[in-house]
């Protein structure tokens, strides 16, 4: 019986007999937040079992209550949240512990936290203390839960660090978190979580903040450790690809409710609920180029290739290479190295790469938001060729009407103190002056309708909108002055997967209607495949591969691209393969170049 999980209380009796492998039983869990505006049911009647050696993936979009579920199990729900009902039972060889009856501050629950059940958090930067060494932080749980002496503890920590594949554990044990990379920090977190051989490991989006190649390593590691120690893993994620890659069982959550659960094959191949179908559908949809894109590409092939609308030649950007007060010349970081690209009229050029690859810097240099160290940008606009690098402040304003940007974070990029109308009207107002207020108002109303919002929304402030709606406002602002080129910097990364394809479709519609050209910066291969005509792959500031999106995504030629693509988990449990992925080891010359 692989499916004991169910939301319906009449199917699973309150005290269903549990088989020997079950280590944690959650029944009808309810957690509520009492807010000024009412009671928010963050978790509403959720039930599942965790089994030895098996992985349960809890999947859902933002706000679905998956993190609160995990925190409720450990009784660390933040104020003003409160567990109001249900049972959480930990099955230990020496008897069951009814966690839901324990006081959240009692020593009994503290004895369980970190020993029987441990947790890994999403943000490896903020979940480690910056002022203590990694060794000290791991040692803490050993001091609390074991009676090992000091030298035995140190030995154990070195063992653990070795086990999570941290190089040179004898030295790195005494290092501070800032000396670790993001992936190493997450490994250290895992080592900390495993210090006392827990029976249950709760991983709350442990790879979301990491690059795909690092994510693949961490997923591998968790899998290996699970095989070795046989703990039950509860893995929280919003990424259907990760679910397909690692899950044995899946529980889908939506708005605090438990929608559906079952084995990973059942969920992916025979989902019962509409919400599950929609989630999987959105993920699978992004595995293929968009139908609109294919149609547009067919159109374009009939027409002769024109001149590129934007040409970048030999662009370099070095940060911080200036001399200091004390005369020592800093080496600087070579963020963009010798990049040359062309963007055709009506084309979408994707720029993919991992964090630190220089893709965002490249986008910002194109817009002169950063001043490039050297290089040339040529824009062929309405009034002939423009040398972007030689523009002064005033003529840069004119360029900014033709070249627009869509930002990643829909929360930070809209001024919370301006109404939607003021935000969208800003580029119009700065160009046309304040005179024709009525015309601007009409234009804003028109733009709002075009991005799928209502004209009467214009008096509202950004806080009245959800993330997806805010991104639509950002798009309306970008479209306001009738641009030719839009630089979209991770425009869909902050959105849930179901919204992602909606926003991409919206952008494609505008591209078709307005003959827009896009530079689409992303770390997400699937959105690039869905949305782009051509792709440039960046690695350490350089473009390592440039070609048609399909060719690059399906038959990559550069070793780095291969490694990157094979690390991307596919939303199909039958195609598990990131543990068989290509690994790219930078050659010695690359290493030197990056110094």
């Amino acid at each position: 019986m692989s499916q004991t999980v169910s939301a319906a209380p009449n199917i699973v009796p309150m005290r269903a007999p549990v088989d020997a492998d079950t280590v944690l039983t959650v029944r009808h869990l309810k957690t509520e937040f009492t807010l000024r505006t009412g009671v928010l049911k963050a978790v509403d009647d959720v039930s599942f079992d965790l089994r030895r050696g098996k992985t349960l993936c809890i999947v859902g979009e933002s706000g679905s209550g998956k993190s609160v579920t995990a925190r409720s199990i450990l009784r660390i729900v933040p104020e003003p949240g409160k567990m109001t009902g249900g049972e959480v039972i930990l099955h230990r060889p020496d008897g069951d512990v009814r966690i839901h009856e324990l006081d959240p501050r009692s020593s009994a629950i503290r004895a369980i936290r970190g020993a029987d059940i441990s947790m890994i958090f999403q943000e490896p930067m903020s979940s480690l203390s910056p002022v203590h060494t990694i060794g000290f932080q791991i040692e803490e749980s050993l001091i609390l839960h074991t009676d090992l002496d000091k030298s035995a503890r140190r030995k154990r920590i070195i063992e653990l660090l070795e086990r999570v594949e941290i190089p040179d554990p004898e030295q790195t044990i005494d290092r501070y978190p800032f000396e670790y990379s993001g992936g190493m920090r997450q490994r250290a977190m895992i080592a900390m979580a495993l210090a006392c051989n827990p029976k249950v490991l709760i991983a709350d989006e442990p790879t979301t903040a990491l690059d795909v190649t690092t994510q693949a390593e961490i997923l591998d590691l968790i899998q290996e450790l699970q095989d070795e120690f046989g703990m039950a893993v509860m893995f929280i994620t919003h990424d259907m690809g990760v679910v397909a890659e690692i899950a044995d069982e899946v529980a889908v959550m939506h708005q605090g409710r438990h929608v559906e659960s079952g084995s990973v094959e059942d969920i992916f191949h025979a989902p019962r609920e509409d919400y599950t179908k929609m989630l999987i559908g959105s993920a699978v949809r992004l595995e293929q180029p968009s139908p609109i894109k294919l149609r547009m590409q067919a159109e374009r092939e009939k027409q002769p290739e024109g001149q590129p609308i934007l040409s970048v030649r030999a662009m370099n950007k070095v940060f911080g290479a200036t001399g200091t007060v004390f005369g020592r010349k800093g080496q600087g970081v070579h963020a963009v190295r010798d990049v040359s690209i062309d963007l055709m009229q009506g084309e979408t050029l994707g720029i993919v790469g991992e964090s630190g690859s220089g893709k965002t810097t490249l986008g910002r240099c194109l817009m002169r938001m950063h001043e490039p160290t050297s290089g040339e940008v040529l824009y062929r606009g309405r009034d002939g060729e423009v040398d972007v690098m030689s523009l002064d402040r005033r003529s840069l304003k004119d360029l900014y009407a033709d070249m627009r940007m869509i930002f990643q974070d829909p929360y930070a990029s809209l001024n919370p103190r301006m109404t939607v109308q003021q935000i969208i009207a800003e580029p119009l107002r700065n160009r046309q002056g304040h005179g024709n207020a009525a015309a601007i108002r009409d234009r804003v109303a028109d733009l709002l309708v075009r991005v799928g919002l209502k004209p009467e929304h214009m008096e509202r402030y950004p806080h009245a909108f959800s993330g997806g709606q805010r991104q639509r406002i950002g798009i309306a602002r970008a479209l306001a002055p009738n641009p030719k080129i839009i630089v979209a910097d991770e425009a869909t990364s902050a959105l849930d997967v179901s919204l992602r394809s909606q926003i991409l479709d919206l952008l494609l519609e505008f591209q078709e209607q307005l003959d827009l050209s896009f530079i689409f910066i992303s770390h997400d291969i699937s959105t690039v495949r869905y949305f782009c005509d051509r792709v440039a792959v960046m690695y350490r500031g350089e473009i390592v591969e440039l070609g048609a999106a399909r060719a690059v995504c399906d038959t990559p030629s550069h070793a780095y691209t291969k490694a990157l693509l094979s690390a991307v988990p596919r939303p199909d449990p039958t195609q598990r393969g990131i543990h068989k992925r290509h690994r790219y080891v930078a050659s010695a010359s690359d290493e030197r170049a990056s110094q």
Partner: protein
Amino acid sequence: MSAMTDPPTGAAALPDDVVSIADARGAEVAGQWRLMWWKFRQHKLAMASGIVVLLLYLVAIFAEFLAPVDPNAFNPRYTYAPPQDLRMSFVDESGDRHWGLHVNGYRSEIDRETFRRTFVLDDDDRIAVGFFVRSDPYLLAGFIPASVKLVGPKEAGQPFYVLGADRLGRDMLSRVIHGARVSLSIGLVGVFLSLFLGVVLGGISGYYGGWIDTVIQRLIEFIRSIPTIPLWMGLAAAIPLTLHPLMVYLIITAIVSLVGWTDLGREVRGRFLSIKDEDFVAAARLDGASEGRIILRHMTPSFLSHIIATVTLAIPTMILAETALSFLGIGLRPPVVSWGVLLQEAQNVRSVVTAPWLMWPGAAVVIAVLSFNFLGDGLRDAADPYAT
């Protein structure tokens, strides 16, 4: 989260039930000031303090009307007269109760050994007290001619010392009320001067950064390292004695704020630094907004509320500075009436022992400073309604 449902893509047709904008008066259309007000309202202590501050300023504005007598009117018959109790009724010899607001008059007794004159309240001597009594004509708030006082003895010239009298027989209540005017207003001059300097220099420092930031920050550090009390004392000595005492104090406040702007300057610099890298500021730049517009329209509203809160917290510091300087004799001097000047009278132990009511201005200072601090705390908490 039900708000997560997005409308369908593409050009949606206008719905029939178009809600008029005037109807939508919820949180969606609430600007930052309204959100701040909602948040501030929950802070009960700050609300109460805000009301107290408001009342204090009303007292300062209508001082002539509220004070029973002229603060400088002296009466040698009543030096160090103790406070009288306001009474609602009295019982006469026959045991009947008579209603009517009154205070008791004084009977002086001479101590046979020390020949010191002391006052005792005379229960038989009743001075009727009334509201809206006639008085000598005066100018209310400096320009409205009036001749009515809120409260006073019905018969002019009768002793009326609810908070006692000082060594020249001047009414403490009237002096505390008039002192509020100077104490609560003169600090504002200093605060606004520091505000101006702080916002301009801190803003330049934070927005432009680089060498100019370094210069301004080192200047701030230098200014903050100057010991202030000796500086003030030296400056007070340097100001010509022929100037009006109020003018002297204004000059000193200006000097105090030349030191005091540094705190605000750092605050503003910090705000600029944190906001200048926000995406919405980058977006404004890409929208073609000029530097002036970016600063005034896009950035300033984000920290205006913080500055108001900081200013509210700076006012009590100024009030305390005035009190301290005047107490030391280097701030305001008589005949100007301020709380600090009044407290000078309470400098020696002997007068405090014999006339503890001379400490009343101190209570006024405590109330004003606490109210401003609570109000400032509440404002600071409410200042960023978008922080989670």
